[in-house]
């Protein structure tokens, strides 16, 4: 599946939920299933300082695909990161750089998020692309 296909799948999944509680629970669940980030990886330079919660993000490149590991002290934030990772993991730097995150608007998740939190999300998306850009640079 391409990134776009995976995004469409998510939108279909979310549309099944009746209310915001179920959506939140789904997202929190995604966070729970995220591969654990080793404590040693949670270093200062991998920290994205949000408004109230902390996010650690690390990326590595394998066989031309970019892989992410992340964690947060907030479960909701972690769930949102998991969503992003779900779309991007293993994709080429080029695909990641051109990925359109605007679909997040359509999930109806963002409207349930405080703007400060939404900003944190935008920041995170930007950081993920930044890492991909680093690898793209390295392979050029």
């Amino acid at each position, binding site marked *: 599946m391409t990134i776009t296909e995976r995004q469409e799948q998510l939108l279909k999944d979310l549309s099944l939920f009746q209310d*915001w*509680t179920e959506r*939140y*629970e789904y997202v*929190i669940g995604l966070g729970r299933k995220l591969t654990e980030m080793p404590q040693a990886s949670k270093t200062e330079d991998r920290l994205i300082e949000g408004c*109230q*919660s902390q996010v650690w993000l690390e990326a590595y490149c394998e066989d031309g695909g970019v892989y992410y590991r992340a964690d947060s*002290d*907030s*479960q*909701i*934030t972690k769930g949102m990161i998991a969503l992003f990772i779900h779309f991007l993991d293993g994709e080429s730097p080029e695909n990641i750089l051109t990925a359109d995150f605007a679909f997040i608007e359509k999930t109806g998740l963002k409207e*349930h*998020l*405080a703007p400060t*939190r939404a900003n944190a999300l935008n920041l995170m998306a930007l950081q993920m692309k930044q890492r991909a850009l680093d690898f793209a640079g390295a392979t050029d």
Partner: protein
Amino acid sequence: MSSYDVSAVRSVFPILKHEVHGKPFVYLDNAATSQKPEAVLDVSRHYYERLNSNIHRGTHYLAQEATLAHENARKLIARHLNASSVEEIIFTSGATDGINLISSILGYSGKIKPGDVIAISNLEHHSNTVPWQMLCERSGAELEVIPVTEEGTIDSTAFDHLLEKTSGRLKVLALTQISNAFGTILPLAPMIDSAHRAGALVVIDGAQAVPHLSVDMQDLDADFYVFSGHKVYAPTGIGVLYGKRALLEDLPPWRGGGEMIRKVSYEGTTFNDLPYKFEAGTPNIEGAIALAAALEFLNGLGLQNVSSHEDEMIRRAASALTSIRGVTLYGPSDRSGSLSFNIEGIHHYDLGTLVDKMGIAVRTGHHCCQPLMARFGVTGTLRASFGCFNNEDDVNRLAEAVEKGVEMLR
């Protein structure tokens, strides 16, 4: 309780009539800012529709009417605080502005010298911390912090020890009357007394006290006292600094400009009498008048009635939350205004987000008290804070929402 008709009180707050996220609105963020009763909003509007004019300097009718209204507001506030004289009431833009005024003029007065000590408590809001850090930086004085007990109250043994250790050097003691984070009421009477005996000036941050307690300047005997209008049912942008007359007369002015002068010439400018000496520029005229109206509103309900009602609500909320597994309630059991808590394994931000989705406004985070959060090893808490209009239904909805949120996050 029986005499306090909370549903009547609710009915005069227009904002409570509206829904949030499609649910009736539960506002439990009163410690951050209060909601405004109709009477206060009407006074503001009436001011602009009938009286508005710049004050003190005008001969014309409206200028005189507006001046009268502004100065009557000052009188009413002086009476409410039982100040010895109306000149002791200085209008500021808020509690933070008032604390900065005092810390700045103490700095400019030259009274604070290298090696002197300024003491605050670990419970202080950033607004009663950072100005003193800045004054220390500028003057070479040292900041000392009175620690708190595990219960979130002042460690009085440590305070005694601090007084001893800083003997002869303690110049300022700056304390909050009620902790905005934990609701702790500080034992001000003996502390002010000790500080005075040590030769220090005492500055009290009444931001959280004025909405809940009847405060009496002559009885309290603090040298300076500040609060914000917006936390006591008045608009944003207005606050009060009370100061003892002799001290205010002795200290230099802070802001320069219109109003605070007697005569300006390039050879030398002389300053106006109290209270104007500390009020430069066009004041927040409407804000002052609305603040007086807000205090009248509160007096109309009866501060004693309001606070016993609020205390009852806060006790019920505390007891409802206690039943949740892993809950920690901060502060002593006789807290006033605010109830802070955390739930093991759950981020306060997550729980706050979910609770908000259920139509309940609580605050999450450090409540501008990072050093206090650090003391308790947390990055923040959830805080439900109460006002005159909160009722049992609010308490029940809070408890349900927290339970449901915890369920989702566990």
